[in-house]
Each structure stands twice: as structure tokens, then as C-alpha cells.
């Protein structure tokens, strides 16, 4: 009797498991497309290599499920990329579908790699929602595509993107944990601000730096959304798109109270030196040099030493939650002075990330 029970239980389990397994997954992605895949994806294409960091929030060995990717993480990831390589030597063997720009992406290569899912950004350096030809060809070849977004409208799309990834990768539990963690922190800021309805909104000037080029600033989108959310007044909202270049004269005449710059330089390179395996003094040196330019000397933010730096890639990553806390802390120190953005990263390291972030990711200019 007992054996029979056991057997039937086993059969039931198998039926149930296979039944579950065969259950197709239907999701709606961030651009509103309904996508069905037969089972959780085991071989994915990353339209932007840097989203490996995103996968590593959900999957212990993200490299094992990447069937192909663009080369941008190798080139822009700095020493973080090296740490990923050390942890996952197989990284070097992931086939490239293109280098950095979307025009370098080979659709044929994607099809040849036989992925069971392509993950693209809604707006990205790789193929995105505007790449009609790539989408058409991949769909014709039976390769499903889902669009995620941490870049155009991260405030709205980060949570849906993570939930989406949890479903299509069969990692819903991890995704839900991350989303809960994310929402808890967002809600803390939202709740605090709601209690102070008559709050002054400090003007925030943010620039996103790449090398020595004229910097871009977030407009109506991107990290600018987090400035507005955190009770700041993003002076870049006059820009027509998500990111654009502000006239320095406008910046001076606006007299921003807070000046935040992003950076991605490795030690020895031009720009703000910040990120994995970077030392505090290196960030401080580059930030001090940047803040001492004549053109920013009249800014209140510079005179009152409210000059800050953060890692550039927060602009296109669910790790933006740490950036939100930093922005809140810098914009409203009287309310959020106790927030610890590096502490957020520490918790993310411990609870989620396959390769921990170690180095300087946020900095406040010291006098």
C-alpha cells in the first residue's frame, strides 16, 4: 500500500513537474509586446553586454546562460569586467553578435547561435525597439525577443523589467526578492518626501561624462527621473530628449544647488575616475580637477562644495536603486543624510550579485 502510494505520488510529481515544465510562459514586455516562450530561457542573447550585471542579480552563473552578446561590457566595464572574467573565465568564450554600436550587430550570427530568447533594451547601444529589421528577421527565424529598459525611463521600467526577466529566466523568486528590496527603498524615500509637502526643490545639474567630451545631461528620462523623484529640480528637463547637451551659460544662470557628475574612467584615463577597484583618492583627484574648471566656478553648488560623482553605468542598470539613494542624500541631506548608497551596494552584493561591486561608486568632493 505504502509503495503504491509512493509510486502514485512520484507519478503525480512527475506529471506535475513536466506539466509545469511544459507550461508556456507569456509575458508583456516594456514596449507592450506580448511574448510567449515554451519554457524558461536557457540560452539568451544580450543586446547590450553590460546587462550581464543585471542577469547576475538573478542567476548565480549568468555567463552559462548567455549564448551571445555585444562587446560593450568588455570595453566599458573597466576593472569590473576583469573581475567578472576572473570569476567566470568562460566569459572570454561568449560569442560576439556585434561590437558596440547597433549597426555592428549581425542578425545572422544571432540566428546561428540558436538562442531561445533575445533580451534587448528598449533604447540601447545594441539593437533596440527601433531596430525594425533585426526584430523582423529574428521573429521570422522564430527567436522570441523581450525588451527591457533601465535607460529611457528607468523610474517606470526598472521593476517591470526585473519581473519580466524573472519570468522568462525561470527565476521569479530572485526577481521578486530584488523587486521587494527595490520597492522598499523607493517607498522609504517616497514616504519621507510625502511627509514634507512644502519641501523646497533644490536645483540639480547632472552631467554624464565620457572622456573629455562635452558632457551630456539627462533631460526628461534616464537618471533625470530619479532627480525629480528624490525631490530635486532637474535643470536638464528643458532638453528635448532623454539626454542632451546643456549650454553652460544656461547652467550658470540657473545656479544649481547640487552638481552631480557621472564617470567611467579607469585610473590614468581622462574624466572622472570611479568604479570597480578604484581608490577614494583617485576619484577625489579627478573630481577636484573637474570642479576647478573656470566655467563651473560661479556655480553655487561648487562654491558651497555640493559636488558629487557616481559611476556612469547606473544610468542603464537596475543597480540604479543605489544611485537613487545617493541623489536623494545629496539633494536633501536634511532628510536623507543617513542613507548610505555604498551600503545599498553592500546589501546587493550580499543578497544578489554573482560578482560583488568593490571600489568607489559614489563620491562627495572633499574640501
Amino acid at each position, binding site marked *: 500500500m505504502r509503495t503504491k502510494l509512493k509510486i502514485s505520488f512520484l507519478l503525480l510529481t512527475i506529471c506535475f513537474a513536466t506539466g509545469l515544465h511544459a507550461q508556456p510562459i507569456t509575458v508583456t514586455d516594456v514596449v507592450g509586446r506580448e511574448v510567449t516562450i515554451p519554457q524558461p530561457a536557457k540560452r539568451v542573447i544580450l543586446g547590450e553586454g553590460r546587462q550581464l550585471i543585471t542577469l547576475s542579480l538573478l542567476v548565480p552563473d549568468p555567463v552559462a546562460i548567455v549564448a551571445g552578446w555585444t562587446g560593450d561590457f568588455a570595453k566599458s566595464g573597466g576593472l569590473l569586467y576583469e573581475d567578472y572574467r576572473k570569476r567566470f573565465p568562460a566569459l572570454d568564450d561568449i560569442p560576439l553578435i556585434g561590437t558596440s554600436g547597433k549597426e555592428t550587430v549581425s542578425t545572422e550570427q544571432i540566428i546561428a547561435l540558436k538562442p531561445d530568447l533575445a533580451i534587448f533594451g528598449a533604447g540601447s547601444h545594441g539593437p533596440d525597439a527601433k531596430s525594425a529589421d533585426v526584430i523582423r528577421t529574428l521573429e521570422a527565424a522564430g527567436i522570441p525577443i523581450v525588451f527591457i529598459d533601465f535607460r529611457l525611463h528607468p523610474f517606470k521600467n526598472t521593476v517591470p523589467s526585473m519581473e519580466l526577466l524573472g519570468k522568462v529566466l525561470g527565476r521569479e523568486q530572485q526577481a521578486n526578492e530584488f523587486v521587494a528590496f527595490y520597492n522598499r527603498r523607493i517607498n522609504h524615500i517616497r514616504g519621507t518626501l510625502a511627509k514634507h509637502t512644502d519641501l523646497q526643490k533644490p536645483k540639480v545639474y547632472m552631467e554624464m561624462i565620457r572622456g573629455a567630451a*562635452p558632457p551630456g545631461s539627462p533631460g526628461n528620462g534616464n537618471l533625470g527621473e530619479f532627480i525629480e523623484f528624490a525631490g530635486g529640480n532637474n535643470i536638464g528637463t528643458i532638453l528635448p530628449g532623454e539626454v542632451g547637451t546643456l549650454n553652460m551659460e544656461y547652467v550658470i544662470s540657473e545656479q544649481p544647488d547640487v552638481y552631480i557628475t557621472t564617470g567611467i574612467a579607469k585610473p590614468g584615463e581622462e574624466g572622472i575616475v570611479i568604479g570597480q577597484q578604484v581608490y577614494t583618492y583617485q576619484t577625489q583627484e579627478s573630481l577636484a580637477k573637474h570642479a576647478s574648471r573656470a566655467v563651473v566656478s560661479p556655480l553655487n553648488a561648487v562654491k558651497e562644495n555640493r559636488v558629487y560623482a557616481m559611476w556612469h553605468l547606473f544610468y542603464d542598470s537596475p543597480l540604479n536603486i543605489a544611485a537613487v539613494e545617493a541623489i536623494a542624500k545629496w539633494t536633501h541631506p536634511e532628510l536623507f543624510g543617513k542613507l548610505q548608497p555604498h551600503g545599498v551596494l553592500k546589501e546587493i552584493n550580499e543578497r544578489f550579485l554573482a560578482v560583488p561591486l568593490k571600489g568607489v561608486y559614489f563620491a562627495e568632493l572633499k574640501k
Partner: protein
Amino acid sequence: MTPETITIDKGYRQQFTRRVAMLCALGVAALVSFFVDMAVGPSMLRFNEVIQAVWSPDTVGLAQRVIVWEVRMPYALMALLVGACLSLAGCEMQTVMNNAMASPFTLGVSAAASFGAALAIVLGLSLPGIAGEWMVVVNAFLFAFGATLLLQLLSSMRGSGPEGLVLFGIALVFMFNAFTGIMQYVATVEALQQFVFWTLGSLSKANWDNIPLLTALFVVITPFSFASAWQLTALRLGEESARSFGVNARRLRLLSLLRISLLTAGAVAFAGIIGFIGLVGPHIAKLLIGEDHRFSLPASILSGALIMSLASILSKVVVAGAIVPVGIVTSLIGVPVFVILILRKRS
């Protein structure tokens, strides 16, 4: 004097006066445009405040001083300089190539400069001892100049006709574009964006380090250009007639190309690719003032400076507070002027 020569003499004097007046008008227009450029900006400084900041910078606040001295003035001056350099280069180029479609960018000079800039931005390669943003400048300059020398070498192997030069020039354009394409292919996303911004052309790199350099370049080269004015006019009549005036066409072409490459390289190095001025500046000048190079050379300088200065104003006001790369709006300003002039000439 016979009555005929008196009539000719009178006609010449009238024409001369008219052309001088036209030059003065262009000069005044450029100057006015420069002042407007200085007066326009998102910060709503009044014009007398701008003047006060210019004449006695110590009496005004830091913000006002920085806006006028570090933002508005460098941009406005750079606009004049870049427009003048490219348009002068274009005027000479159209004559020595005997081709109305020629511009400083026809013969691969800008393609070479782009490749040099890409090398600096993407790979960080430049001469030893050159660092930071100067790498882009030095590379753009070296490659533009190198391309001209290569062009000279190639065409001297074949004879000095303008057709050969154009063909080799086009070959250089494609070669350097391919090299630049390779650079873009291996570039990081950030470097790629930086490079794209550079190629769009922008006055935002103007500062008190590079304006004196470009000014010096322009001031040194222009007299040589003016000194060749009559020879260029003779060449415009055809190579045979030029030879009959005793002009060594080959030598003239060589020296002219040298000036063109220096002017173009200088402008491109500091402002990126601004393609339209070098083609249309000289045409506007010639439509207004004729083919006599004693007038068309200075007129080209002034019309180029004027268009560029107007474009600089427009690039600031399209989206108040934002900057639209000036290379984009140059055509928006220049094309209507150009079309109107052509239509008026026809009727």
C-alpha cells in the same frame, strides 16, 4: 586716352567702388552678427551688462564674468574664425581645382582629420608627450596635413592637372572613411558617442588656449593667400591663359593646397567637421562680388565668418538652454541665403 578707354576706366572704377562697398557691407554684417552672438544667450544678460563685463570684468559678478568671458566670447570668436578659415580655404580650392563643387573637404582633408581624431578618441594614440584633449587636435591637424602631402606626392607622379588631384582626393576620402569606420567598429560605446559628437561639429571646444592658435594660423596664412590673388584670378581664366601671364600653375596649386590644408586642419581640429561653409561661403562671395580674387578672397572670409556666426546664434536659440551642434544648423542658415542669391542672379 581714347573715349573707349575712358569708358572702360570709368566702368572699372564704378565696379571697384561697388565691390569695396560690398566688402564693407559684408564686414559690417559679420561684425553685427558677432555682437548679436555676444548678446544672445539663455541667461538673459542685458547687452549693456555684456559690454560692462567685456570692458571692466572686475566690476561684475563672477557668474556674469564667466558667462561672457568663458562661454559667449570664445564661442562667438571661434564661429568667426572657423567660418573664415573654411570659406577662404574653399575659395582657393574651387579655383585651383577648377571645380565649383570643390570644398576643403573634397580632397580627403577632413576625412583624414576625422581619422586622426578617431585614433585619439578611440585608441588614445597620438604623438609622444601629447595628452588629453590635445591629442584630438594634434592628430586631426597631422592627418589633414599628411593627406595633403600624400595627395601632392601622388599627383606629382601623374602630372599636376586638377582632374588627377580630384580623383586621388576622392580615393583618399574613401580610404580614410574606411579607416575611420574600423575605428568606430572597435570603439567603446562612450568613445563612439564622443566621436559622433566631434564629427557633428561644435563650438563648445572653444577656449582661450585654442582661439589664439587658430587666430595665429589664420593671420599668418591669409597674406600669402591675398598675395596670390591675381595669379588665382588668372588661373580662373584657364590654365593656358594663366601660363601666358607667367603664372606657374603647378607651383601655385601646390602652395594653395598647402594653405588649404593648414586652414582646414586648424578649423577641423578645434571645431570638428563643419562641411557646408567651405562650399557655400565662397559661392555666396562670388555671387555678390564676382570672380576677381582680390575681392572674392576677402569676401569669402567675411561671408564664411558671417554664416558661421549666424549659425552660432541659431544653435543657441533653437532649444533655449540646450546646445544643438553648430554643424547641424550651419546648413539651415546657409542654404536659404544661397538659394535666394542664385535665384536673384538668374532673374
